[in-house]
C-alpha cells in the first residue's frame, strides 16, 4: 500500500496486468525507452522487454488497426495515444472494426483492446494537446468509455479495462496526473466498468462530473457546505455504459442537478446525462438541469484556456441557479 499519483497508478496497473497475463502488450509512440511522454509506461520496457512494450511508427490509425489484429489473435494490446488531439484518426478503426468485430462474426473473433490517452485541458499545453473527445467515443456501439478521477480509481478501472474482453477507451485526466496522491493497494482488484461513484453524499443538489472536474466539484461542494448547502458529488467514471441507476437515485433524492465537463456543450457528453433526466428522471427534477462546460469553440491556446475550462466559481454559480428554484 502506498500513496500514488494518478499516473503512477496507471503505471502500476499496467505492470500488474502485464505481469499476470502474458498476452497484455503495450503499444504506442515513445512508450518504450522513453516511458511515454507522461512517463505512464516508465520502466515497463526494461521490465518486460521489447516484445511486450512496442514503439510503433508514428501513426495512430495504424496502431489502432494493429491492435484489432492483435486482439483477434488473442493478445490484449493496450495502446497509448500521446495526446487526446491525436485520437481522431482512430475513430475509423474503432467504429468500423473494433466495436463490431465480435458482433460481425457472431462471436468467432473479438477485440479485447484498450485505447489509453492523457486527455483534457489545464496544463497549458500546445494546440491539440488539451482536447476532451469523450463524446465521440461514448457514441460508438460496442465500445466502453471510462475516465478515472483519482489514483485508486485509475488503478482499478484500468485493470478492469484490460481484463475486459471487449474494446475500452480509457481517458486519463492529464491535469491531475500528478495533482495529488492517494493510497493505492496493488492487489489486482479491479473496479466495475459500469458503476458511478458517489464521492460525497448530499441532499440539496447533485454534481455530476468525471476526470479532472471531480476535484473542482468536491471543492465546490465543500464551499457549499460552508453555506449550509449539502451537495452530492457523483463521479460518473464509466460514461458508457452509463450507470443510470446511481444518477437517477441521486437526482431523485436531491431534485437538482449540475453536470460539469470540459468538452464543448453541443452534442457533448453532458447531453446524454441531461437527456437521461428528461427521459427517466423528469418528475424528480425541481429545477432545470444546468450544464457547466467549455464552449462550442475550438480549444483555445493556453492564454484563453482558463476561460474555456469550467472553474469552481462557474460550478458554484450553476449550483446557485438550481438552488434558486425552491
Amino acid at each position, binding site marked *: 500500500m502506498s500513496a500514488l499519483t494518478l499516473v503512477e497508478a496507471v503505471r502500476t496497473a499496467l505492470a500488474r496486468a502485464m505481469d499476470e497475463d502474458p498476452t497484455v502488450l503495450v503499444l504506442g509512440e515513445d512508450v518504450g525507452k522513453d516511458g511515454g511522454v507522461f512517463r505512464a509506461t516508465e520502466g515497463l520496457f526494461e521490465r518486460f522487454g521489447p516484445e511486450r512494450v512496442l514503439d510503433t511508427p508514428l501513426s495512430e490509425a495504424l496502431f489502432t*488497426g494493429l491492435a484489432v489484429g492483435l486482439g483477434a489473435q488473442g493478445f490484449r494490446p493496450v495502446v497509448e495515444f500521446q495526446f487526446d488531439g491525436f485520437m481522431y484518426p482512430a475513430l475509423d478503426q474503432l467504429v468500423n472494426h473494433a466495436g463490431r468485430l465480435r*458482433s460481425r462474426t457472431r462471436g468467432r473473433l473479438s477485440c479485447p483492446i484498450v485505447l489509453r490517452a492523457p486527455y483534457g485541458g489545464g496544463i497549458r499545453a500546445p494546440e491539440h494537446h488539451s482536447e476532451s473527445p469523450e463524446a465521440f467515443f461514448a457514441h460508438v456501439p460496442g465500445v466502453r468509455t471510462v475516465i478515472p478521477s483519482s489514483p485508486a480509481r485509475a488503478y482499478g478501472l484500468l485493470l478492469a479495462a484490460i481484463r475486459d474482453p471487449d474494446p475500452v477507451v480509457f481517458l486519463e485526466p492529464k491535469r491531475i496526473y500528478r495533482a495529488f496522491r492517494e493510497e493505492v493497494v496493488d492487489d489486482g482488484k479491479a473496479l466495475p466498468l459500469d458503476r458511478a461513484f458517489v464521492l460525497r453524499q448530499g441532499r440539496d443538489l447533485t454534481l455530476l462530473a468525471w476526470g479532472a472536474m471531480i476535484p473542482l466539484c468536491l471543492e465546490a461542494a465543500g464551499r457549499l457546505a460552508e453555506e449550509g448547502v449539502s451537495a452530492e458529488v457523483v463521479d460518473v467514471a464509466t460514461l458508457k455504459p452509463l450507470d443510470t441507476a446511481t444518477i437517477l437515485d441521486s437526482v431523485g433524492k436531491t431534485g437538482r442537478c449540475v453536470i460539469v465537463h470540459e468538452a464543448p456543450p453541443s452534442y457533448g457528453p453532458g447531453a446524454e446525462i441531461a437527456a437521461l433526466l428528461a427521459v427517466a428522471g423528469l418528475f424528480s427534477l425541481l429545477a432545470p438541469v444546468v450544464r457547466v462546460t467549455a464552449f462550442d469553440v475550438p480549444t483555445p491556446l493556453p492564454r484563453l484556456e482558463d476561460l474555456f475550462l469550467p472553474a469552481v466559481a462557474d460550478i458554484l454559480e450553476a449550483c446557485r441557479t438550481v438552488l434558486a428554484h425552491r
Partner: protein
Amino acid sequence: MVEVASFRIERVEILRADGTLAAPLPAWAEDGAELVRLYRAMVLTRVYDTKSVNLQRTGRLGTVASSLGQEAVAVGTAAAMRPEDVFLPSFREQGAMLWRGVRIEELLTFWGGDERGSNWSGPREDFPICVPVGTHAPHAAGVATAFKLRREPRVAVCVLGDGATSKGDVYEAWNLAGVWRLPMVTVVNDNQWAISVPRSAQTAAATLAQKAIACGMPGIQVDGNDVIAVREVVGRAIERARSGEGPALVEALTYRLADHTTADDARRYRDDAEVSARWKEEPVARLRNFLVARGLWDKEREERLLAECTREVDRAVEAYLARPPAPATDMIDHVFAELPPAMAAQRASILRRAAERAERRSEPRGGRP
C-alpha cells in the same frame, strides 16, 4: 550527386494468354492433378459468381461483387497458403475463401444480409469480409505481429484492390510490416478499376508493386490472369515470410470483366471494346487451353465439372434460402461478451419491435402501420 539506392521491379509470366508457356513451369505445376484442382476452383468461383449475381437480380440476395476474370488471383493466392495461415479478404475474394473452406451457403448468408455468414465453420481465424476499402491491412499487420511474437511459422495474407493502394492505412500497415519484418503478404488484385476510376487515375506510380519500395520490402508483379504464376509468386512470398525474412507485396495484373458490383453499370464509364479485348486474357480459358494441350482436360470433363459445380452451388442456394432467419436479439447478443445490464432494456425493446413487426406482417394489407 552519388547514387545511394537502386531498385528494380520485375514481372513473372508463365502461361501466355493463349495457354502456351512463356517460361518454364514450376516443379509443383508438373503435377496435373494440382492444376486440375486449381482449374476446378476457378470454375466453381465463376459458377458461384454467376449464380449470386442472378440471385441479386431476382431479389434473393443483396448487392454482390463478382470476381469475373479475377479468379486466378483469389484461387492462386489461397492455394499458396497453408491452412494455419490467416486470410484477410476484401469483398471480391470469394475464390480464396471457398478454397480455404468457407462454405458457399455461408457466403450467401453474408451477402444475403445476415452476420451469421461470417461465423463460418471453416478457417476460424480468418478475418471476415472487409467492406471499408483497405482498412484490413492494419489488421493483417496485427495478425502477423501476433505470429511473430509467438514465434509461429504462420503468415497473414491480405488481398486488396488497386484502388485500395491509395489508402493511407494500407501504406501504414506495409510500412510497419517492413520495419518489424512481419510475416505478412499483400496481394493487390490490380483489376484496373476502382469502380469508375481507372488505375491510371489512382497513382502515377508505373507499377503498384513499386509501392513496396517506400516500405522497405520487396514488390513484384505477376500476371494475375495466370493462376500458375500467381500461386508460384505468392507462394514464394509466403514461404519467404514464413521463414522470417519479412513481408512482400505482389501486384497481380488482371481485369474486372464484370460491373463493379450488382449496383454498378460499368457502361457509363468504360468502353465495351476495352472489356472485349480483355476477355481474351481471362484466366479460366487460359488454363483450360493449357490443360487441353497437355491432355489433362477435354470437353467431357468440362461438362461434368460444370454440372458438378452447378449442383454444388444450387444445393448451397437451397440451404441458404431455407435457413430460418436469425432471432431479433442476434443484433445485440454478440456486441459484448456479456450484455451489460445497462443494455437489458434495449434488448427488451428489440424483442418488442420484433413482435410488432411480426404482427404487422401477419396482418392483411391496409392494417395497422
